[in-house]
Structure formats: structure tokens, C-alpha cells
């Protein structure tokens, strides 16, 4: 995949949007298996209802994994120094998620170049599922 040219990246530059297939029960079953997160709130409708929810909800870490894909699609993973998110609403079955990100800060001195991105995952109605940050650090030789 084509990586960003870190020499020309500037504040305001965006990473390409990543829009996912709608979340299905199969998506959640697969993620439960792959991640080992078998919390029934994500895979068992009866349990979700007993917990006061209308349906199962997606794993927050699945949504963060999608956002990670949006990052590594354009940024070499090994230069990502920090990746953090704050979950703001539950992701439901049928939601179509879009991951986006924008450069908000750039530090460029003799030893170091660092880039900070603001990140968001929203559904097709514009409801925010999470917001986050990534910090990229490039050492200068």
C-alpha cells in the first residue's frame, strides 16, 4: 500500500476515509472468536436483553481495530507511537461505520519529526462512536 510522504504532510491533511460493511451478527461472532472477547453482550441476544439493551452491541475494540486499519492503510504501523480512543456511543447491528482522521499538529526539529492526528469513527447518520488520537514519531538520521 502507498504510504504517506511524511516530508510533505501538513496540518489539515486527512487520511483517506475507510467505510466498512454494515455490522452484522456474523461480524461480531467472528470478532469474538478472533479476539477471544466472548462477553455475551456482543453475541447473545438473550443476555443483551436481560442487561437492558434492545440488541447485542459491537465490541468497542472492533471499532478501534477498524480505525487502526484506516491508520495503517496510509501510515507505516512501525512509526505509530501512540493510539488512543474514547468510546462515545454504542455501535449497533446494521451500523455502517466510517473512520476518518486529520493532522492537527506537527513538530519538526533537528532530532525528531512528530505528527498528531485527530481520529473519529461515525455511523451513516453522523453519530460519533469514538474519537481518538494517534501520534507518529519519525527519528531523523
Amino acid at each position: 500500500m502507498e504510504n504517506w510522504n511524511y516530508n510533505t504532510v501538513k496540518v489539515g491533511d486527512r487520511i483517506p476515509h475507510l467505510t466498512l460493511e454494515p455490522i452484522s451478527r456474523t461480524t461480531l461472532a467472528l470478532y469474538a472468536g478472533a479476539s477471544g472477547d466472548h462477553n455475551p453482550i456482543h453475541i447473545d441476544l438473550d443476555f443483551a436483553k436481560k442487561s437492558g439493551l434492545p440488541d447485542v452491541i459491537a465490541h468497542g475494540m472492533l471499532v478501534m481495530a477498524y480505525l487502526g486499519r484506516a491508520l495503517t492503510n496510509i501510515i507505516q504501523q512501525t512509526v505509530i507511537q501512540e493510539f488512543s480512543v474514547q468510546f462515545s456511543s454504542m455501535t449497533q447491528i446494521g451500523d455502517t461505520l466510517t473512520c476518518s482522521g486529520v493532522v492537527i499538529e506537527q513538530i519538526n526539529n533537528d532530532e525528531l519529526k512528530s505528527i498528531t492526528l485527530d481520529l473519529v469513527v461515525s455511523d451513516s447518520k453522523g453519530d460519533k462512536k469514538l474519537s481518538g488520537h494517534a501520534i507518529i514519531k519519525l527519528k531523523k538520521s
Partner: protein
Amino acid sequence: MLNRALIGKKYPPVVFNVEKQRLKFFAKATGQTDPLYFDEAYAVDQGHPSLLAPPTFLTTVSMEQEKPYQYLEDLNIKMGRLLHARQMYSYHAPVYAGDTITMESKIADMYDKKEGTLQFVVFESHFKNQKQNKVAKASSTLVVQ
């Protein structure tokens, strides 16, 4: 009210072998399209020793402990009342298929908001590889409603 005496409680280390099949399954489950994460020949061609573990893969390590939800018992929380509020990773070195990762976790903090109706528990985890090199640190904040 959560038992704040448990702040600082450490959990037994978890040793996790990063297997190719697990990375491929994780790639499939997250809809990964970059072959770096599921095609070993491609990863090697790109200069990596094997398949690269993606940024959030370390979440699987904590699920492989003998009792991944022991903390629910310790804190007397029902699983259905729990949501993930925040997650942070800082990275020191890449994790590849074939690595053996050791995770050490503790309850780092607890606090509440909205006059105690929302209670937060923060777990901090440190990950090392088989060479004893630090690979990552994670902080997970859960909210109990």
C-alpha cells in the same frame, strides 16, 4: 461503590504465543485488506520477519488468561453493567508471528462521575517479548453503570 482498596492490585502474568493462524483470523474478523497482516510471503518481502500484529491485536492477550473476567468478581460487578470507555496503546517495538508476549496487568485507578452513578476502573498493562524487550503499554478504562 467499587472497592478502592483494590487500586494497585496486580494480576498474574499472561504468556501468549503469537501464532500466524490467530493473526490471520484477526485480520479476517476485522476485514483487513492489507496483505502485510495475513500473507507471510508479502510481509517478508516488505522487510518484516513474519506477519505483523496490527495495532489493537494485544487486546487478545488479556482474553487468554485463565479467568479473563476475574476482576469482575474482585470488584463485584455484573458483566452486563460494564462498558469500555477508553483505550490507549503506546508502542515500543513491533510484535510479529512467532513472538512470545508476556503481559503484566494491574488495577491502576478508580474514579467516579455524576455523583457516583458512573464508576470507572482503569487497568494498566505492560507487554514484553521473548527478548525481554518492552513492546507496548496499554491502558483500558471501563465504566460501570
